[in-house]
């Protein structure tokens, strides 16, 4: 290409981060994966179309739900309380809220993050100052104008410990004083450490933007559903139903979605209920099915099956700061019992990718391949002897009873541990009960949802003192490597630091990670234009019913 990539980008978008032209050159030469380039470039504020131009690809453009009429979409999903988006701890809660309130950015089913309420963003070279330009002429459903004050209010709320939001750890480099309102449409964040993934983090499910008087007016979205989104909450009853009705075209700033109404129906805990509802025409889509139900669904021609490869997983994590797992050799022994490929077969019917005990997935751009983890019983026995358990050891792991693949996988793990002398007893309990003890139990099997970048979960779960650090892991070397990774936007270089993080986690045997799972959902044949999001987020703008 003869054009100066920098000039073309400038023509296509706002002023760009200085590192982008070099990255673009790398992408063109094939040294950086194009997808990874797209991700990084859009993270750094380049518009999607500009990024595509630079990478030499044609922009995709929004997908129209071809020939599909609007209508009412009924979704079978648990309808839980929906009080405060910043305190959401289950994805289902955010799915109902997602049509009422919106986010600054949006990560699509292709794992690329694009502008949403924020129309553009840019970062300083040291990645410690982020500036967001907001769209204009957006109105809240109560008539107020949407502007930077609302956004600043949300950021300050998230980092306030009194709110009790998990966003506080997600934006750990931000304090209330670091949120600056530059003008009506511009918010600037001053972080105390470099952060690469702020735009990606802004689409996490608890990061929806609420009105600046949210707490003042009761702090309950289900009772006072003020939002910028295309739907309004018509009725809401926990455990039963939520009805969302499309607002008039003039009231919403964006393209009018095809669906006139979206109804969420709660069918309880039985996994068959959702499928039965769709098969008999009582619902058009469900939230998720487990791989156990794949055969059943595939045998029914009247149903559509949706699949997505994800970085969703669960980790058998050990509390490394107290006995018995404060002994690294014991942890390594447990890790060495596992044959990960076999575990994927047994636990999830092979529908996914085998885990490698370090929580970075092959679909993450900065994933670094390490030598394969192998099952080695001789090593296990030696480690056990060194750890002071020459005659074997009795351990216990806590696991929730649903989704079914989790206890199934833990049972397979236990069976793999037995021949080496580790008697792993499994303690299964209801999900809500596990939710009370997930970060206190010495050995627990905890589910983790998909995140687009590898560093994100490392920041949330393995950094010293992080809110969701359920294993009590605190390793300075790991933190330093992670800080460097967070500050490095070049994918190749970041991969080196992430490789270091991976190696440290594996060596310290903090977790045994069985697999990365693909997820599935079921819909009726009438459903058009639906793509399953790796995080089960319901992005229904292009969906219609035929």
């Amino acid at each position: 290409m003869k054009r100066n990539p920098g000039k073309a980008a400038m023509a296509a978008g706002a002023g760009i981060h200085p590192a982008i032209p070099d990255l673009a050159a790398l992408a063109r030469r094939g040294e950086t994966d194009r997808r990874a380039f797209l991700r990084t470039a859009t993270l750094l504020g380049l518009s999607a179309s500009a990024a595509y131009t630079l990478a030499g690809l044609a922009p995709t453009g929004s997908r129209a739900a071809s020939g599909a009429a609007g209508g009412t979409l009924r979704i079978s999903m648990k309808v839980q309380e929906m009080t405060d988006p910043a305190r959401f701890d289950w994805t289902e809660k955010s799915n109902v809220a997602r049509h009422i309130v919106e986010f600054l950015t949006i990560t699509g089913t292709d794992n690329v993050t694009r502008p949403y309420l924020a129309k553009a963003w840019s970062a300083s070279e040291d990645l410690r100052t982020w500036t967001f330009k907001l769209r204009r002429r957006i109105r809240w459903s109560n008539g107020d104008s949407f502007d930077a004050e609302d956004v600043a209010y949300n950021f300050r709320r998230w980092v306030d410990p009194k709110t009790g939001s998990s966003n506080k750890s997600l934006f750990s480099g931000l304090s209330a004083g670091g949120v600056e309102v530059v003008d009506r449409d511009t918010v600037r964040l001053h972080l105390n450490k470099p952060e690469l993934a702020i735009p990606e983090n802004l689409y996490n499910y608890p990061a929806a933007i609420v009105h600046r008087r949210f707490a003042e007016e009761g702090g309950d979205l289900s009772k006072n559903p003020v939002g910028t989104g295309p739907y309004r909450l018509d009725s809401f009853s926990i455990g039963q139903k939520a009805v969302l009705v499309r607002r008039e075209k003039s009231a919403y700033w964006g393209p009018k979605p095809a669906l006139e109404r979206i109804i969420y129906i709660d069918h309880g805990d039985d996994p068959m209920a959702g499928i039965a509802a769709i098969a008999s025409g009582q619902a058009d889509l469900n939230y998720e099915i487990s791989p156990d139900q794949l055969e059943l669904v595939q045998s029914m021609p009247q149903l559509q099956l949706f699949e997505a490869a994800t970085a969703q997983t669960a980790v058998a994590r050990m509390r490394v700061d107290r006995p018995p797992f404060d002994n690294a050799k014991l942890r390594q022994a447990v890790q060495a019992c596992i044959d990960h490929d076999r575990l994927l077969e047994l636990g999830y019917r092979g529908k996914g990718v085998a885990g490698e005990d370090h929580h970075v997935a092959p679909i993450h751009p900065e994933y670094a391949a390490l030598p394969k983890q192998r099952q080695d019983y001789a090593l296990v026995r030696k480690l056990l002897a060194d750890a002071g358990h020459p005659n074997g050891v009795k351990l216990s792991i806590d696991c929730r009873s649903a989704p079914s693949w989790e206890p199934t996988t833990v049972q397979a793990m236990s069976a793999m541990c037995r021949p080496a002398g580790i008697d792993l007893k499994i303690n299964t309990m209801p999900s809500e009960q596990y939710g009370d003890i997930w970060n206190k139990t010495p050995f627990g099997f905890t589910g983790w949802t998909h995140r687009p970048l590898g560093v994100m979960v490392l920041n949330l779960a393995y950094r010293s003192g992080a809110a969701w650090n359920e294993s009590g892991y605190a390793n300075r070397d790991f933190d330093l490597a992670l800080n460097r990774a967070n500050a490095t936007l070049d994918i190749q270089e970041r991969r080196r630091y992430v490789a270091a993080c991976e190696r440290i986690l594996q060596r310290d045997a903090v977790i045994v990670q069985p697999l990365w799972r693909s997820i599935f959902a079921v819909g009726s044949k009438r459903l058009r234009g639906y793509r399953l999001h790796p995080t089960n987020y319901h992005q229904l703008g292009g969906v219609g019913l035929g």
Partner: protein
Amino acid sequence: MCLFLLKRLGMLALTMLVVSVVVFLLLELTPGTVATKVLGQYATVEQQRIWLETHGYFDPAAERYLRWLAKLLTGDLGESLRYKTPVGDVLWPRLLNTVILGAAVLAIMVPLSLALGVVAGMREGRPSDRVISIVSVVTTSVPEFASAAFLSALFVFALGWLPGTSAMSGGFNWRELVLPVAVLVLYDFGYVVRMTRASMADVMTQPYIRTALLKGLPFRVVVLRHALRNALIAPFTVILLQVNWLLSGVIVVESFFAYKGFGALLLEASLFGDIFLIEACAMVAVVVAVGTQTLADIAYAYLSPRIRFA
């Protein structure tokens, strides 16, 4: 009679008191989890402590129990942690749903099982009796979750005749009631048939029946006027006891078909740890259990002169 009634009501009150103590001890002895449920998992320890203190959770257990009991007696059941509304708002509608389900089940099961039981009892030992007995035993042996899955596979997936769930999200719908009622009737009718059959067979061998026949009365009149009245006493009380089962024993069916009833409510509340709702449900279940027992005793005493005048 009055004394009998008073004694039974006294037993009811005492049972409720004992159950209330047990339930309270089981659920409210460790106050920590209540705060987590209300404030969310990311609340700080300090915030939890303040909330617990404001709501009186650090008072001695006995005091908290008496306070709770006093509120219960005045009709204040507390607020549901999951639904964030007063317990009554959730409990009574769901209870009504189960009552509707139970009423539908009884409306079909009672005539069906009584008729079959009477026929089987009258023709004791004959082929029709054998067939009825075998069918009754087989259907009662198949657990509800199995018959629910089987009927669902047949009528929802294979034939597509009936709706797969009974959430009644579009308002009350008779078609959504068919499968849950069918499963419950199938499971329960065999038991009542066998009870009725035994009772009927026993009555048919009584001397007074023989006398009536020898007197020359038509067989039909003998059965309707003499045999049935005596034969139906035992099944009647058994049916009353089924009411208790229809309240909380239907959890499996309600859960499978997503029917928003009392059993499913108790299940969800237990899984979630919704303490006040569980306590209220437990009290309701006790009232129904002891109440139906009492009613059954009274009915039996009333219907059977031998007991009444004993």
